[in-house]
């Protein structure tokens, strides 16, 4: 087994674990409540203003766990970001290797690893756990079939599952709720991209990453400029594949029309969602 296959198997195991936990603690409603799971596991929890130190933090001391939620960053304990952060910390608790490391005291007592945090496999695993805990595959895929395509559907699913726009959009893209290309822009520059399986299979695999090339009157340009938000909650414009995918030449058969939607994520930047006007490749 290659290291990539082994890594995927580990992520699959973590997804199964998270979905099992979600099923166990989510009875009547579709929404998983991380705070209820934290209470059931007898983990104490405090929300406070902890300046810019972290979003959330799981601490093991004297044989007991405690979770801190930082309202300075999370704004409200009911926000999608707060719920995802708590679910992320629960990932560190439920994933055996993470919990053992914390219990052993071998982990740093100081969380000063923000520089490479997003690439840190441990943090990625906790994010993976959180995503599956809050948006379990079967329930999410079933709900995804009942919503409109694009950001309208993403926002509806966000409300149903109580998650953040970004995490919901990623889940929609990975699960092929639509033939999506998802691009995240930080306030300064391109941050990351994600393709749905059908988009990737159709050969649309590279995106334009230069912020300066985004037309001011496009949906993304308007969101970046902070224009007045339309009533539906996001900007929308028509575009072409060649405008966004460098590998597609203008005027060729694959240069199909795309719908471009964008939403401002406050201080975190802008999210762009692209899908073919025909809704399929």
């Amino acid at each position, binding site marked *: 087994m290659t290291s990539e296959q082994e890594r995927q198997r580990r992520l699959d195991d973590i997804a199964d674990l998270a979905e099992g936990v979600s099923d166990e603690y989510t009875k009547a409603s579709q929404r998983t409540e991380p705070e209820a799971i934290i209470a059931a596991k007898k983990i104490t929890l405090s929300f406070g203003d902890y300046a810019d130190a972290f979003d959330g933090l799981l601490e093991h001391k004297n044989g007991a766990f405690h979770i801190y939620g930082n309202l300075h960053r999370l704004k409200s304990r009911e926000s999608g970001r707060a719920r995802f952060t708590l679910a992320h910390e629960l990932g560190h608790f439920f994933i055996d*290797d993470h919990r053992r490391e914390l219990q052993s005291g071998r982990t740093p007592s100081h969380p000063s690893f923000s520089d490479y945090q997003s690439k840190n496999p441990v943090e990625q695993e906790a994010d993976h756990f959180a995503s599956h805990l809050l948006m379990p595959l079967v329930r999410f895929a079933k709900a995804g079939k009942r919503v409109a395509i694009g950001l309208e559907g993403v926002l509806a699913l966000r409300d149903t599952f109580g998650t953040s726009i970004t995490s919901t959009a990623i889940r929609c893209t990975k699960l092929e709720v639509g033939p999506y290309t998802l691009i995240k822009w930080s306030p300064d520059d391109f941050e990351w991209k994600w393709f749905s399986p059908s988009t990737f299979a159709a050969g649309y695999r590279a995106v334009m990453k230069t912020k300066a090339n985004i037309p001011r009157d496009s949906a993304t340009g308007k969101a970046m400029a902070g224009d007045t938000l339309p009533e539906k909650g996001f900007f929308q414009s028509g575009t072409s594949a060649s405008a966004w995918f460098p590998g597609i030449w203008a005027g060729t058969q694959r240069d199909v029309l795309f719908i471009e939607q964008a939403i401002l994520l406050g201080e975190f930047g802008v999210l762009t969602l692209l899908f073919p006007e025909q809704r399929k490749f």
Partner: protein
Amino acid sequence: MTKPSHPANAPKSGDTERLVEEYLRRSVQSIPQTPEEVAAAEAWIANQSIEVPKRLLAADPCVVPALRPSARAIPFPQAVSDVGQGLARAARDGKTITPDVEERMKRDREQKEREAKGDK
């Protein structure tokens, strides 16, 4: 073609089984079946010095392989700070914790732990 010759000292047919049994009994490799054989086996074992392989001296590899940390475990990133007093943390988007924030965290945790014990 000439028939292969039979060694002169080879056991005759039927003798082989008896000779093997005799050897096993003398070297206490067969299961003792009579009181005399049991007594002989016990006397033989008492005089033997059987060393347990070092890898089996600890019960861990034989009894609890499934409970040991997976070889695929991914270590937490190491930070510069100390690891002391049984304190360990995993932060989401963590940055420097200033002393006043550290103090606030300590206070908040103690308060919540008191509440959990029913001592407000």
